[in-house]
């Protein structure tokens, strides 16, 4: 059934926004029963290409062929009718409704809802693809992995023949990701075409039948995974120069304590103790939802500590925040770039002023001209596109938005930096840049890095802490190979003995 004619054929598609060539002469075949991985840096044009396929954007020129016949995907509905379905990075589900209701939502099969028939249909589908889901469960009670399965079922129910996954593993645990790959394999085996967008090179190598690399709006390379293809080689092709997955890092002498957390409890936390000094980087690893969020919100002043003490730069939490010194001394780089760190409806200048406004205040006035000059320089230094301070924040791609947040937060020359998943959703070049900046910032600051990426933590940290169920189960120094080997078990709740964790903790602080 995978004959010579591809399911979807893109023929020299072009799409420009003003002077920016988002897609240029894209020609690509998507075959039924195959998994195609799409790789590219931020702003390489992946999102635009997917929007063209999903009917959200129209190409300026070029054709899209469906089973060899030209189609015009004039709307998202048209794309769905043609059997093209997307699983977005941010799920489009109604949290208050059940799994079944979400799956059958928007079906235009006559006026009446035949609930039991629909349920039977969906249950059969779920069985056929090996997706174990309770159809009556409320979506709000599901894990991220399960929500993703709902999205997949939704597309299968609509009889989508092409399923496009946008960074599907970024919200999943390793076990859930393995499940997803199994489901993708199953779908491919049953004749579905799969497009997989990811930044994680190992994943791409593991799952893809074919790899296409996008760069500056053009497809620069197409290849099939072979035994001799290693992540580093893939990365080289993607960014066009050798990328060191190992980060250059030098030891710094830790200086005065910038953060001290003692017996912190409440809000899902239990007896958390940690200390951070200027010149060091402490990462907290763990599966999301084990208290990292509450800890960060406590430290960053969004949530008052219930039990125990948080001291920042030698000051008590309440005193520190009453004095409003956050702006000069503490930088918080939150995971939620759109919802917390930026105002999507305002322009880049206003977004830059969000946490730097006091530096540009003269009495009651805000000196926007000086701020604009500084921002224009930062936009250049950090290579943020577009380099126009009057652009609205919602128009920026995820990577560029993150660079804007980082540029702003580092501009303040903080002494304590709390960074939450700072490289999530970034391509390698951008992530490397972030790592370099974080390491460089150790000169003047202590850094608390919350990450789900163990490799990132190992590459950057002086010490690593593991969180599980609101507890900091262990803190270890980077050279403590024995403890580091046990991190996966600790993340799963198999805690080390008291004595061992205490010993490594002290080692970490004093070394």
């Amino acid at each position, binding site marked *: 059934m995978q004959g010579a004619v591809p399911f979807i054929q893109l023929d020299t598609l072009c799409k420009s926004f003003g002077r920016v060539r988002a897609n240029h002469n894209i020609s690509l075949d998507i075959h039924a029963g195959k998994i195609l991985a799409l790789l590219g840096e931020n702003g390489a044009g992946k999102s635009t290409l997917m929007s063209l396929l999903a009917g*959200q*954007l129209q190409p300026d020129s070029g054709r899209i062929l469906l089973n060899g016949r030209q189609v015009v995907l004039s*709307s*998202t*509905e048209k794309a769905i009718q043609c059997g093209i379905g997307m699983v977005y990075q941010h799920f489009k589900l109604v949290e208050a409704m059940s799994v079944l209701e979400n799956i059958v939502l928007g079906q*235009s099969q*006559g006026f009446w809802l035949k609930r039991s028939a629909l349920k039977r249909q969906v249950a059969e589908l779920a069985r056929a693809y090996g997706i174990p889901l309770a159809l009556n469960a409320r979506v709000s009670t599901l894990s991220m992995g399960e929500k993703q399965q709902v999205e997949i079922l939704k597309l299968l129910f609509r009889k989508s023949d092409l399923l496009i996954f946008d960074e599907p593993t970024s919200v999943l645990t390793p076990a859930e990701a393995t499940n997803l790959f199994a489901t993708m394999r199953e779908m491919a085996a049953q004749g579905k075409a799969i497009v997989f967008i990811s930044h994680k090179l190992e994943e791409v190598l593991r799952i893809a039948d074919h790899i296409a690399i996008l760069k500056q709006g053009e497809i620069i390379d197409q290849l099939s995974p072979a035994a001799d293809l290693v992540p580093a080689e893939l990365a080289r092709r993607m960014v066009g120069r050798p990328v060191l997955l190992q980060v250059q890092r030098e030891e710094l002498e830790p200086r005065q304590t910038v953060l001290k957390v003692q017996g912190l409890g409440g809000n899902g936390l239990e007896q958390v103790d940690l200390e951070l000094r200027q010149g060091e980087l402490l990462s907290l690893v763990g599966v999301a939802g084990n208290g990292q969020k509450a800890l960060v919100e406590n430290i*960053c*002043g*969004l949530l008052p500590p219930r039990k125990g003490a948080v001291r920042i730069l030698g000051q008590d939490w309440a005193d520190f925040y009453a004095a*409003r010194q*956050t*702006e000069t001394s503490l930088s*918080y780089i*939150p995971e*939620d770039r759109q*919802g*917390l*760190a*930026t*105002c*999507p*409806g*305002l322009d880049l200048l*206003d977004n830059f*002023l*969000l*946490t730097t*406004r*006091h530096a540009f*205040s003269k009495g*009651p*006035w*805000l000196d*926007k001209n000086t701020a604009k000059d500084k921002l224009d320089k930062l936009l250049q230094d950090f290579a943020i596109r577009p380099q126009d301070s009057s652009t609205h924040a919602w128009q920026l791609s995820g990577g560029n938005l993150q660079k804007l947040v980082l540029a702003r937060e580092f501009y303040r020359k903080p002494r304590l930096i709390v960074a939450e998943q700072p490289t999530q959703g970034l391509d390698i070049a951008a992530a490397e840049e972030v790592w370099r900046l974080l390491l460089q910032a150790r000169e003047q600051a202590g850094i608390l890095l919350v990450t789900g990426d163990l490799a990132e933590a190992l590459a950057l940290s002086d010490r690593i802490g593991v969180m599980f169920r609101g507890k900091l189960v262990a803190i270890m120094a980077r050279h403590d190979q024995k403890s580091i080997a046990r991190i996966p078990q600790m993340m799963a709740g198999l805690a080390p003995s008291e004595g061992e964790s205490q010993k490594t903790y002290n080692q970490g602080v004093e070394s």
Partner: protein
Amino acid sequence: MHGFLLRIAKRQEPSPLWRSALVLFGAVLVALGLSILLLALRGISPLEGCRVLIMGAFGSSWALQDCLLKAIPLFLCSLGVAIAFRLQIWNIGAEGQFALGAIGATWAALAFGAQPKFILLPLMILAACSAGGLWAMIPAIFRQWLGANEIIVTLMFNYIAILLLDFLVYGIWRDSSGFPMTPAFSKNAILGTIGTSDIHWGLVHCALLGLLCWLFFRSTRLGYEIKASGDNVQAARYAGMPYNFLVVLVMLLSGALAGWAGFLEVSASVHRLQPSIMVGYGFTAIVVAWLARLNPAGIALTSFLLAGLRAGVENLQLDLQIPAAFGAILEGLILMTVLAGGFFLSYRIVVRRQT
């Protein structure tokens, strides 16, 4: 089964300016059409109705001056609610804040009537703005510290304020003539007219206050913080902005502007306090702010147009014996159709054959 199916589809790209203008124009036309239908029910020819309405609004220099006079309180109230709306605080209480402003100004005028003009007038403004501002602050405090919905509280406060005004003019402030009104203000408590026109200096106040507001949002840190908090409350919290303070401040400013309008009404137009000053400027102000998308220049223009509508409806009342409620209906229809028209800016209707 065959037939046509109407489906709603989201627009994939933002609407251009011409479409916004078209939708606005169309919405006003629909509202006018519906109101003419109402007139027709009373046996009035639509053409005659329109003629009387437009002549009453903009048909003579007298009409234009009347229009401008009505636009002044409307503009200030609307500027006030627009400031609150910027922060996404829904102040529906401009009417009550306007009443409190009138009460405050009257108190100063009655208590210090013998003072010279240059002392008395600023004193009246101060009293009016404080009264209106504090009145608006109460719902803000309820909102931030008790979790009370500001829409409901500000709305209810309107009725309390109006009854308070009645209580005063029927009670301790009642004129010796026995009518429910205060004695006429002393000469020094009256804001004069510009040159030989009927327009009082309140017009200049409006221009200055409008400019100040624009400058406030453009160039001050507080203005910026209000704008940012209005766009994303979470980001404001993240950036350490004093959100509670901003809400209270914004309501204070909002109420003070409505209070200023109350001052102008008693000092420059009526020269005393009486219940008839409450003609619903505070409610119309919400319509104005919304139609003008919170932009000060737009508010000025829209205030003038809606003031014209009021003047025109008064003319309808006089010439064709249309009930006063017709004005409110027309105003309501315009707001409804314009808001409903906004739908066409984000969505489009697709006709499709069902198979």
